[in-house]
């Protein structure tokens, strides 16, 4: 894995340097781009006056020490920025994933059990909307209805704007608020999770439910299901205990990769809900050609994909005895 990450860092470093663009506009502002003194000072401060090769070796030397450099935009070490923002994204992503996978499995099972009937059509339509609705539009719509119009749920942010964030232990507001015994803050942070997690999770529902439906229909045509039915087992037992477990195997892979994708790809949801996560950081980094931040986010994404791949392999072995035995 370290070699893979090293390769990713090298490729991203080179690609970012080859991208047409001038990061100085982020550092000094467009008004000072023709001020030679200010430009020279900025280049010297950020090492942009060195050759690409010198910059590469300096970057790699720092990377080995765990230093990803300092962001042009936030002026903070990239590691610090990611450390600050990752829990927010993880908390949102995990909530969206748990909700999305749960609802997706239920819908997929219902759709498969009632193939081509009314429930199937409804479940597929719901999944289709989840897959096709743009996150920013769905977010604004849900905010309008549930926050602005009826006031049933809170608005953007991780907690009430007047609230004070819990002391950081894990960075998860739901967990940290419980750890400091503040149940009001816990309730507030959970309430703030509902809308963004729904927007993000709805897309997951679409993916999971269609996959579960298709896999279950395949399983239904296999002999062991016929045997189970012939043995007189209840249909619920046949589906939930036998067929579903086998049908969920491909879902594990999809869920794992969806999780990794959402870690850096939840930008629209994060923007609409003013969620200070990694997604918005990634977009700002690429928009501003913030080299250190771009590499940091890419390495984070790469690590997430590698780890989720590993976890999905482990989960496969756990779920399917044939893999364990082989």
């Amino acid at each position, binding site marked *: 894995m370290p070699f893979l990450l090293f390769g990713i860092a090298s490729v991203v470093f080179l690609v970012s340097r080859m991208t047409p663009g001038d990061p100085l506009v982020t550092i000094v502002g467009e*008004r000072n781009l023709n001020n030679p*003194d200010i430009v020279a000072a900025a280049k010297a401060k950020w090492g942009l006056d060195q050759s690409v090769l010198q910059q590469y070796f300096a970057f790699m030397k720092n990377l080995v020490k765990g230093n990803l450099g300092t962001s042009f935009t936030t002026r903070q070490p990239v590691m610090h920025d990611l450390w600050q923002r990752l829990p927010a994204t993880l908390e949102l992503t995990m909530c969206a994933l748990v909700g999305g996978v749960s609802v997706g499995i239920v819908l997929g099972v219902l759709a498969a059990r009632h193939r081509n009937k009314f429930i199937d059509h409804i479940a597929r339509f719901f999944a289709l909307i989840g897959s096709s609705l743009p996150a920013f539009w769905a977010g604004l719509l849900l905010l309008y209805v549930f926050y*602005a119009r009826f006031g049933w749920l809170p608005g953007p942010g991780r907690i009430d704007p*007047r*609230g004070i964030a819990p002391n950081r232990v894990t960075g998860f507001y739901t967990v940290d608020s419980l750890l400091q015994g*503040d149940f009001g803050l816990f309730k507030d942070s959970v309430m703030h999770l509902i809308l963004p997690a729904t927007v993000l999770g709805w897309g997951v529902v679409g993916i999971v439910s269609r996959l579960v439906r298709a896999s279950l229909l395949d399983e239904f045509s296999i002999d062991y299901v016929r045997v189970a039915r012939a043995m007189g087992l209840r249909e619920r037992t046949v589906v939930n205990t036998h067929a579903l477990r086998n049908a969920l195997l491909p879902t594990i892979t999809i869920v794992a990769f969806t999780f990794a994708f959402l870690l850096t790809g939840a930008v629209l949801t994060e923007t609409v809900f*003013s969620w*200070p996560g990694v997604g918005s950081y990634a977009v700002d980094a690429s928009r501003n*050609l913030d080299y250190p931040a771009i590499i940091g986010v890419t390495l984070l994404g790469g690590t997430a994909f590698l780890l989720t791949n590993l976890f999905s392999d482990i989960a496969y072995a756990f779920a399917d005895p044939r893999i364990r035995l082989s």
Partner: protein
Amino acid sequence: MWLGNRKGATRRVVAVGLAGVLLLGACSSSGGSSSGSTDKALLIARSMDINSLDPSRAYCDTCQIYMTAVYETLIGLAKDNTTLVPRLATKWEGNAAQTEFTFTLNPKAKFSDGTPVTSADVKFSWERLQGLQASSSYLVSTIKSIDTPDAQTVKVTLSQANSAFLAQVNASYLGIMNSKVAIAQGATIDPKTDKAEPWFLANSAGSGPFTLEKYQSGAELRLKRNDSYWGTKANFPEVVMKQTADAVTQRQQLEAGSVDIAMQISNDAAKGMNGNGVVVSQVPSFNFVYLALSPGAKGGEKLTPKVRQAIRLALDYKGLIDATVGGAGQVQPSPIPNGFAGTAGLAAPAQDVAKAKSLLAEEGVTDLTLDATFPSLNVYGVDFTTAMQKVQTDLKAVGITLQLNPVEISVWADKIGKDGIPVTMLYFAPDHTDSSQYVQYFGLLKGSQWQTWARTDVSQTQTDLLTKAFAEQDATKRADVYKQLAESMVADDVIIPVVNPNLFLAARSDIKGLYYSACCNLIISDLSRG
């Protein structure tokens, strides 16, 4: 095939179900604010553009608000956006040649840690600003030396006459820091040795009515009232600026009462907002969006003076304001915005398609196609793509085709720096209250921003006029010189202002003291609830 143990499966289902019930229970509990709420705090929804909180490096609209609240300048600006008023300095004077300025500090002025503000702090703050060569360093570029004959006197000698110096001193970026504290945290006047920026992202060392409590990039900026402030204390014990990128979301938060002020409400978002505890007003701003023509850019060779004039005459200015900000803006005659010295009596630009066609015919230009790469921005409620599409339509009517190419600003900066861009769009907001900043940026002076980007000849007339303006002590006479400069810049047809958008001030109805400040954007210490 896996035929699992039914008992075990049941246990697992029950466990998963229980977990689901717990999660649902958590997710369905009724709302309410957190127990740690600070009811009297002022909440502001804002798309923050903070580049730094180091007073010598900060340079952004949000930074102006922050700097004004935390680091005081020697001179302040009255609500009329014209009159200079005492702040850290009780009095000031300049010599007739406008090369020496002397400030007398208020002996009562103290930093938030209780130490007095002295001339040594002023000297260090300005020398550091000059030495670090950061974005706002140009404001002190004419300072030759700073003498401190005593703790309350600051004598500044300039390398050239500069009648705009007092206005520049009024810019929020010239706020004074506690030099002893800053030096202890690694601040120096040399960019190679200065290490204080990270410290300033979490702490402050100013004398203003607020101190920095907490800053979390992309989330919030939290200020705490300086309870030992030497002047009139601020009304709010705490001010929280919340990152809210979207104007619609800002509106929703304001209407729901989640925030007290929404700072970037667009014309569309402002529609139907008044009432229900929310007050929205619009005021003319000094911000503007402009079209820039660069005859020296690659592909811009045919942008002769007559062709540039034809482009100016082909534009439907009212239509541009309608298309971009729904009519909530003003026509701006020159690159010096309405209200600044030298703009009174300037003729408003008007569309004249027939004359534009005639000028193009005189130049023998037919079917001219120009590259129009522009940064894909939405600034002050003006969407650049919408504005450029309207410009494209207007120019099509006179036979000029624009090839619109919206790009990220970093890509735009790279392109304009290397080859130049024949037709582009950008924006400007003032740093201080003197018209010279516009001439220095837009005028065709040697090495100015747009002389360099447009790759045009240097205008000796403008160079001489600016020198004259800098040497002129009398405000009326200086305004006359600036008017000549404005007319000269209009005649260049390199910078064509297209929209001077109004600013929407949107707040809960109990918020008092909200107004637009030319130097400082929003002065938080003037706000109150009542």
